[in-house]
């Protein structure tokens, strides 16, 4: 399959992804209510947005470190951003703000389906941006390999991710409707997405450091940081329980 691509489609779908994600979040908050008041919720959203911005850019730069000379000004120059960096940066910033503001509740469950939708829409932009976007896969002889214009059929990793996110959203939406420990949906989402990226990035032609690219190493770090929380989810009995919708 040959795809006619254009890099300009990337920011279009990125903006559409933000819009769809926010619209879904508003709908979910109206329908199922919120553990947090407006002030605390907006503080969490602002922290997530700023943390995601910084995290996505910093990891985007680090990913290119093996092939580029970095200076501190590089962070402002045009270049890549990464979703894994955005998720980890946003998560870290929210945890810091929660400590500062003494917010005890788990705050991420409401963001899970909006994140799945936003990332999936953004990935359509990555796919349509073609070779200019560094998210395509390695060459393949499989019948669904996609030629982005250079005559080489590659794994359409963006479309694989689209399918994965669709499935994940369905499963987590079903889980979210049942009675579940507070914050469990977000922790499961983050663990599933990081594990997915750890696996799928093996078929992306990125610079490797000790056998994996820096996004994969970040996924490993994120999963290690998440492990105590996942164990708590599995084994702790006295958890606050939340039922949406």
């Amino acid at each position, binding site marked *: 399959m040959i795809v006619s691509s*254009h*890099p300009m489609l990337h920011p279009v779908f990125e903006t559409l992804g*933000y819009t769809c994600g926010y619209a879904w979040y508003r709908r979910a908050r109206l329908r199922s209510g919120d553990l947090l008041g407006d002030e605390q919720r*907006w503080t969490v959203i*602002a922290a997530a947005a700023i943390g995601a*911005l910084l995290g996505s850019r910093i990891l985007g730069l680090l990913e290119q470190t093996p092939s580029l000379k970095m200076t501190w000004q590089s962070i*402002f120059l*045009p270049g890549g951003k990464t979703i894994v960096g955005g998720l980890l940066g946003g998560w870290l910033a929210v945890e810091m703000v929660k400590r500062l503001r003494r917010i005890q509740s788990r705050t991420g469950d409401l963001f899970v389906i909006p994140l799945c939708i936003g990332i999936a829409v953004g990935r359509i932009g990555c796919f349509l941006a073609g070779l200019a976007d560094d998210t395509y896969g390695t060459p393949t002889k499989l019948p669904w390999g996609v030629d982005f214009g250079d005559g080489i059929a590659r794994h359409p990793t963006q479309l694989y991710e689209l399918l994965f996110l669709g499935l994940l959203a369905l499963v987590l939406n079903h889980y979210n409707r049942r009675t579940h420990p507070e914050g469990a949906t977000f922790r499961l989402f983050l663990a599933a997405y990081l594990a997915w990226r750890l696996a799928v990035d093996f078929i992306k032609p990125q610079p490797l450091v000790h056998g994996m690219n820096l996004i994969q190493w970040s996924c490993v770090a994120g999963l290690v940081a998440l492990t105590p929380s996942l164990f708590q989810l599995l084994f702790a009995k006295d958890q606050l329980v939340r039922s949406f919708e």
Partner: protein
Amino acid sequence: MSMEPPPSTSNEPIRLAKLATIFAVIFGIAFGLCTTSVLTGGVGLQGVGLQKVLPFLLGAFLVIEALCLLGLLVVGVWAIVRFLSNKSQN
């Protein structure tokens, strides 16, 4: 018997947080547009004869980024001052 009015809650923290979110999102979009413009080198603008405006577009995106960054800094300083003054009052 008169009833005390409910304590009025200030909307300022919400406004600050909304402003910070808007600045962060616009910065992200402007950054993406800037990167795309550099990548395409104006390819998308050839058809409409606007390739010469590419440097101006890039400049405009960079100005938007700078304004958003400035906005984020102002909001951040404002929030910190507010947080510290609330803390000292308590």
